[in-house]
């Protein structure tokens, strides 16, 4: 490096025209000389009068070799800035995901169809009460706003349905083990992926949540989560790793992990927990309290229950979640209570 950019007083003595013209400092001096540089070269030339002719020729050469700004650069800069602003606004307000109809034109997301697909593990990872989480890796982020779900096809062909008010970040490497970072709630359909060079070697699929990981290898799924996390398995087999403890899950199992590592393991109808991806809520077995929590998480609205029911009534039914008005009206009918919207809160009377 030093031989390329020698200190002037040492080596300029032996410089040819080309040497000068290839010297960064020399070029700098010719192209846009600062007073200090001008002074420096004037002094140097005074001390080396026999180099004057070489320097003059090099200087003329450097002046001749001139590049202009591309004439359209200015217009391009203006046009592209508008595009950049639009793109950035989109990633802030909406997830950078094409509408489902465009992205996956023939997929209906009926659970039954999903479950029939071979080689697929489906699981619902429901993450509740997540502390602020910093995502450290991955170039692609999908985010959903309140009241919005998003269907995402991952680079390996796996599918994710991201529920409202959630965020999924992808790793930038999809050629080996796969990784995503989740905050909120998502439904995963993970494809098997094997190493092309060694088919016995399966690539892991890992869902990182705020403080623990879910590992899926082929048809096996491992979920781990501190704080309060709910995992419901629809199909396949998964394993939850909570610290050193492993819990095998079967389809229909629901495991809830609270902050104190307390585990609740029960059997449920998994469709109740994944119905939101089909834009409905299945109310079977849900209490009014649970509905209130869902409304808060999905739409970002505070929910106030005015009069608690004397006893939890077993409710069955399916309500559409496409828009809040329809949902509230349907819930009013099913629960036989009034669901009233008051600005950013819901009153249940």
């Amino acid at each position, binding site marked *: 490096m030093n031989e390329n*950019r020698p200190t002037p007083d040492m080596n300029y003595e032996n410089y040819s025209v080309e040497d000068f013209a290839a010297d960064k400092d020399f*070029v700098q001096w010719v192209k846009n000389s600062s007073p200090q540089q001008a002074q420096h070269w004037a002094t140097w030339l005074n001390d080396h009068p026999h180099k004057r002719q070489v320097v003059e020729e090099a200087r003329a*050469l450097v002046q001749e070799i001139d590049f202009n700004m591309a004439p359209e650069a200015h217009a*391009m800069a203006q046009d592209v800035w508008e595009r950049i602003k639009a793109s950035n606004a989109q990633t802030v307000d909406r997830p950078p995901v094409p509408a489902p109809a465009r992205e996956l034109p023939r997929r209906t997301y009926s659970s039954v169809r999903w479950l029939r697909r071979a080689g697929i593990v489906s699981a619902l990872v429901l993450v509740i009460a997540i502390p602020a989480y910093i995502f450290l890796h991955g170039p692609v982020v999908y985010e959903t706003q309140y009241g919005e779900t998003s269907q995402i096809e991952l680079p390996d062909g796996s599918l994710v349905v991201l529920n409202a008010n959630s965020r999924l970040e992808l790793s930038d490497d999809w050629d080996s083990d796969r990784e995503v970072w989740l905050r909120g709630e998502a439904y995963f359909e993970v494809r098997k992926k094997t190493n092309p060079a060694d088919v016995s070697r399966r690539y892991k699929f890992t869902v990182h949540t705020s403080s623990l990981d879910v590992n899926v290898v082929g048809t096996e799924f491992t979920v781990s989560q501190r704080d309060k996390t709910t995992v419901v398995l629809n199909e396949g087999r998964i394993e939850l790793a909570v610290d050193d403890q492993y819990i095998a899950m079967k389809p229909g199992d629901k495991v809830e992990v609270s902050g104190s590592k307390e585990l609740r393991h029960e059997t449920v109808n998994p469709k109740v927990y994944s119905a939101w991806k089909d834009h409905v809520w299945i109310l079977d077995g849900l209490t009014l309290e649970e509905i209130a929590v869902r409304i808060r998480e999905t739409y970002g609205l505070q929910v106030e229950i005015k009069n608690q029911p004397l006893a939890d009534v077993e409710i069955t039914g399916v309500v559409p979640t496409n828009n809040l008005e329809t949902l509230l009206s349907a819930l009013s009918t099913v629960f036989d209570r009034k669901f009233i919207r008051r600005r950013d809160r819901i009153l249940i009377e």
Partner: protein
Amino acid sequence: MNIYSSSTDREIWRAFKGGDDHAYEFIYNRHARELFSYGLHIVRNRQLVEDCVHDLFVYVFQHRATLGDTNAIKYYLFKSLRRRVIEVLEKQSKAAQESRAVADSYHHDELATASQEVNMIEAETSIAKNRRLAEAIENLPPRQKEAIYLLYFSKLEYEEIAAIMSLSIRTVYNQIHTAIQTLRRELGSTETHRLPIFLE
């Protein structure tokens, strides 16, 4: 005029990473035109260069929280833009299944020639005062042309040019030296030119 005009690159970059949109816009305004000029210099396809610059700035915006520090923003942007342009060209050449891949041909110093064939030439990016010299610059092997462009016009350091072009500093220096020899010969053979014939 701008609050960042007298800030160092490191300060501006930190502000941008901290979520300051004015810093982001300042970075764009300071470097965009040079980036477009440079992009057009390596591939004469306006749409492609626009897309790459767009993607680059959207990428840094989305990932600003996790980007590393830098005290050489221009270098970072030039290097990133070049990588993106090459990636797109490689993809295009794969998609087209050309026997003579653009990416390969690049390494044989034919990138500009190859892309000239498929893309509209929209701009003359190097215009020397001397027309003969201008032609000589245009006819330089792309790598020599790019290196001398980065030194003379973009005013980057040798270390930065080497990193941008994935070459050693010595190689960059040799490319520039060779280019200058060629151009000097071209100038010297111009009879109207005032330069004395002088050899050490």
